[in-house]
Structure formats: C-alpha cells, structure tokens
C-alpha cells in the first residue's frame, strides 16, 4: 500500500462516523424534527459499544449494542419533543449533557484499557482491484453499512411512498395529519433511526478509529454532523461528499501536526471547527437555496387537533 492510499484510508476512517451521524440526522430533520442531541447519542453509543465489546470479547455485538443504545437513548428525546411537545433545541441539548455524563460513568472503569477492534472484511475479487480495491473493499463492517445507508436513505426518501410521506410530514405536518398520515409515529421512527445511526457512529469511534475508551471522545463530531446536514442541504449524496471533505480536513491537520508545520498545533486542531463555520456561511448565504431545501416544519412542535 503506498502513501496516498494510506492517507485516503485514514480520511475514510475519519469520515465514517461523521457520515453515519449525519445521515441519521438527515432523516430526522427531513421528518421535521431537529435533534441537537447527536453528540450525546454518539458518546453513549461509544461507551456502551466499548463496554460490551470488552466484556463479551465480540466487537460485532458491541457495535450492535452501540446502535441499539443510540436508538433507546433517542427515545428519551422523542418522548419529550413528540409526546410532550417540548422545545426541541433545549431538549436536544439536555440529551447531549446527559449523554456526556452517563457515558463518563459507564466508561470510567474502562479508561486506559485496550479495546477490541473490529477487523476488516475483504470482499472477494473486488478487494483485489488495484488502488481502489484495498480502499473500498477491504474495510470494517461499519464502513460498508455507512455506504449502504447513504444509498438506502437516498432511495427511501426519493423513490418510495413511505419516504414521500416522511418528507411531507417534515414540510407540512398539519396537511399530512389531515390526510391521515401518522405524523407522530413516523417522527418517532425517524428519531430512533437517527439515534441508531449516531450510536453506530460512536461504536465506530471506539472500535475502529481509536480502539479505546476516552472520556468525551466524540469531540464535537455530533455538532459537525449537524452542520453537515445543512451543508448537504438535506440531500444524502451531498452529505456523503461533505463528510469526506471534513474527514480530509481532520486528517490533513493531523498530518500537518505530525510533520511539524510551523503553525501552532492548537490552530490546526481548530481547523475542522472553523471549516464548519466557513462552510455553513457559504451554504446558507444563498437564502433561496436554503429555503427551498429546508424542511418547512423543522423544529416546530406538533399537537394534533382531534
């Protein structure tokens, strides 16, 4: 494997958790719900995935439990915002605060222990293709899932009846309700899907990216994922491009630090966050484009009239 391939491989690994969390949140937001708890769900998924993988010795079981934890945790958000119609911004924040606290307690006894990494699965024939073979077809299972999810979600949202209903709910929940579409049930399912994706993103962090448990190891990835959804203007393939762009920025600054570039390491570490702001500005300054793509009911509570 040459250097270019090695670098691209690390970019892909850095991008996968962003991609997973963002595609989950994309579905949630398309249904009209803004869940700011992505960071909390990622870190909960990571803590549980690490603990289960470590205790059972099976990283696949760990990843599964990470995803399930994310989904279960998101139900807390769902119950408050969908059933009790609380403020979505504040509720999402509390999910993040609670997640950071709970994960710290779960992970406390695992600090400094070696993790159980997920191994690569080489896909026969395809993985022998020169250059792209080792990059795309000799990866861990979470990478394959992330790619399948992008295309799956894209197909679901724009090619199926259920996807059309979900988008309709996000754009006008009152009309959708009047037409008999189950608004709240659909939103619950979307929120849980988002939670599962975020949980799996967390599992990727502690089973693939850096196979160990570190407190607050999500390091703002949940927030970057939220920004990616805006960046991708709520379209899966654009989110895919955005995630890999951010993976490249993250890895680029790490390599620059390793090479000892004469810029203070803190400035390089701040790059992904600054890049997020710049990208958000560039995308949202075009008001027409944003208005056209933003789900019209995003963040609004819905109480059905009976």
């Amino acid at each position, binding site marked *: 494997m040459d250097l270019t391939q090695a670098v691209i491989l690390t970019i892909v690994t850095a991008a996968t958790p962003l991609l997973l969390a963002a595609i989950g949140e994309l579905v949630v937001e398309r249904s009209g719900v803004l869940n700011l708890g992505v960071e909390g769900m990622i870190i909960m998924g990571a803590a549980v995935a690490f603990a289960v993988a470590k205790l059972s010795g099976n990283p696949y079981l760990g990843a599964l439990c990470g995803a399930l934890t994310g989904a279960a945790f998101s139900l807390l958000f769902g119950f*408050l915002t969908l059933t*009790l119609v609380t403020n979505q911004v504040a509720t999402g924040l509390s999910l993040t605060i609670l997640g950071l606290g709970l994960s*710290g307690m779960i992970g406390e006894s695992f600090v400094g222990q070696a993790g159980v990494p997920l191994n690569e699965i080489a896909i026969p024939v395809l993985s022998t293709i020169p250059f792209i073979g080792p990059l795309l077809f000799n990866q861990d299972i979470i990478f394959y899932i992330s790619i399948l999810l992008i295309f799956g979600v894209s197909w679901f949202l724009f090619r199926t009846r259920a996807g059309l209903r979900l988008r309709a709910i996000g754009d006008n929940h009152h009309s959708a309700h009047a037409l008999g579409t189950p608004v709240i049930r659909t939103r619950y399912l979307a929120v849980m899907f988002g939670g599962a994706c975020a949980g799996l993103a967390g599992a990727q962090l502690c089973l693939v990216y850096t196979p160990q448990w570190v407190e607050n190891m999500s390091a*703002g990835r949940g927030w970057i994922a939220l920004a990616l959804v805006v960046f991708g203007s709520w379209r899966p393939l654009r989110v895919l491009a955005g995630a890999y762009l951010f993976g490249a920025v993250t890895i680029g600054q790490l390599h620059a630090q390793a090479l000892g570039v004469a810029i203070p390491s*803190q400035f390089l570490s701040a790059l992904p966050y*600054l890049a997020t702001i710049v990208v*958000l500005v560039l995308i949202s300054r075009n008001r027409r484009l944003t208005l056209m793509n933003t789900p019209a009911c995003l963040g609004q509570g819905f109480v059905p009239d009976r």
Partner: protein
Amino acid sequence: MRIELERRRQQSPLFSIFSPFLALLLTVLAGVIIFWLLGKNPFSALYSFFVEPLTEVWSLHELTIKAAPLIIIAVGLSVCFRSNNWNIGAEGQFIMGAVAGSILPVLLPSMQGYIVLPLMMLMGMLGGAAYAAIPALLKTRFNTNEILSSLMLVYVAQLFLDWLVRGAWRNPEGFNFPETREFHDYAILPEIVPSSGPTNYGFVFAIIVTLLTWFMMRHMLKGFEVSVLGQSTRAGRFAGFSNSKMVFFAFLFSGALAGLAGISEVSGAIERLQPVISPGYGFTAIIVAFLGRLNPLGIFAAGLVLALTYLGGEAAQISIGLPDKIADVFQGLLLFFVLGCDTLINYRVKLVFDRTVKEGGVS
C-alpha cells in the same frame, strides 16, 4: 394506552409556579433510583450530595463562588432565549472574556492601582461581547444557523486559550507550567467578608445583574421588544422593531455577561489563566436559564441549585466514591424534567386508553 395533550385556554397559574419544583422533585426521585442501581444507600448518598454541602460555612462560600458565574451567564442567556436567539456558545464567550480581561495583569503587570480591576471587568465584557458578535453577524448577514456557529466557536476559544497559556502568555518564571503569571493584588477580585470565607464580589455582580435585567425585562421598552420579537418576528416588525438589531442586542448582551462571568472567575477564584478555566459553566447556565423559567429572579435561585450539583458531585466523589460525572447526569436529567414539566403549563396531559383494546374487540 397513549398520552394526549389538550391545550389550556390560558396558562395554568399553578404549574407556572410549581413546575420547576416538580422537576426538582422528579430529579431527586431519579437520583434515588440511580444511587440504588449503583448499589449505594440512596438516602445517605442523597444526603451527602444535596444536604451536606449546605451544612458548613466554608461550603456555603463555595456555593456562592460556583453560583455566581452560572447566574451571570444564565441571566444573559435568558434575554437571548426570550428573543428566540439560540446562543449556546456562552462557554466560549466566557473564555474570551477571561482572556480579554486578563490582558492587563498578564501583559502589563507593572500597571497597578485601583483602576486595574474595573478596567479588567470592562475588557472582559467587551471580549465576551465581541466573540458573541461573530455568530450574530453571521446570522444577520449570511443567514447562518447561530446554534452551530456559536457552538463551534467554543472549541475554537478553548484551543485559543490553550495556545496562549502554553505559548505567548506562559509565565516566564513558571518552570514551563502551562499557565500565565499570577495576577497581582490589584487585579484580584476581593472577598466580601474575608474573615468569614472566600466569597468574592462575583456574587455581588450576580445580584446586580439579576436585578438590573429583571428591571429591564419588566419595566423597560427594551424588555417588551425582546418578548414581542421572540414570540413573533412579524408582530415585532409591525411594532417597528428591527429583528436584526435584536439579534445583535441579544448576542452582545449575553456575550458581555458571559465575558463578565469569565473574568470574574479568573480574577476571583483562579487568579491566573490556565488551559481549563471552566467546568462547563457556559453549558450548565443553559439549564439554569430554563430551570429559572427565563426569569432573572428565578434564575438566581436556579443558579444556587445547579451550583449545589457541582458541590454534590465533588462530595459524592470523596465520601461515597462515585465518579464526579454524576453531576452531569443530574444536570441533564434536571433539564429533561424541567422541559417536560413546563408542558403542564400550557397543556392538560391526558392518558387515553384505546377503546378497541378495552372491549377486547378486534380492530
């Protein structure tokens, strides 16, 4: 069985007052369950978490030191949230306020005298306000989501402080420790009653800020403007209020207060800059603001309650051997319960049993 909401004709006066107390009660109940699950005696654990810190004079002083920044930040955030602007980067504005306010004692230590402290406070407020102006500018000029931009700036501020104290501002006589020189005596916020304990004038700032903001929101046109624009931009426009000016006002106001909290904390409690100067005050203050129902007087009480969870977390670590993360868990749960209970103010919550199930029929 499912839960249905029915909108009340008008806000329930009962729950407007009692919903925060109900939320506190539910949090304590959740605490009993958590401690029990962790295999601790729930009642002695709750005692050492919530009561013990209140039994000694020195810990009451600690309580005011922890509460002051929470109250100052949260009062600023309440104005911001009421105007429907979501500044969740107070933690970053706190840091930048602390940095700007520390310019005098760190870079010009030869400048002494009673003028230093007021200047530091002023520069702290300016620093926080300037940092909060960034998301406000991006929101008004480029339509950028202020939640994400203000939050991203928190990470940037943390890294900036880290760079300062390890690089340009590191104490030349400090044996390479990542911290600035200690503040000189004129740059330290004095204690109110030195013979009793370390409570400093930061707590006085908290009281003043609370009262002034309460007065503004209750008796001044500006307060009315905040509420009107927060509830409906359209209605505000008809009244001749400018929404983009309000975005700036909300961010500068909350940023300045976060900056004041930052420089007060550094000058009153830490007395130098170091890589980490806040245990997450900027985020906890969001909980304080909501627990206080976005009312400055309520926030004052809520700040004391949340400060108690910090002390309780430390106490739980020492006396019952629980990780201090338990404080975060309580804070997160508290915000959940506060938000959930607030639903009772505007809605009647009903349990509905499905008739088909009750009659045993097939649907």
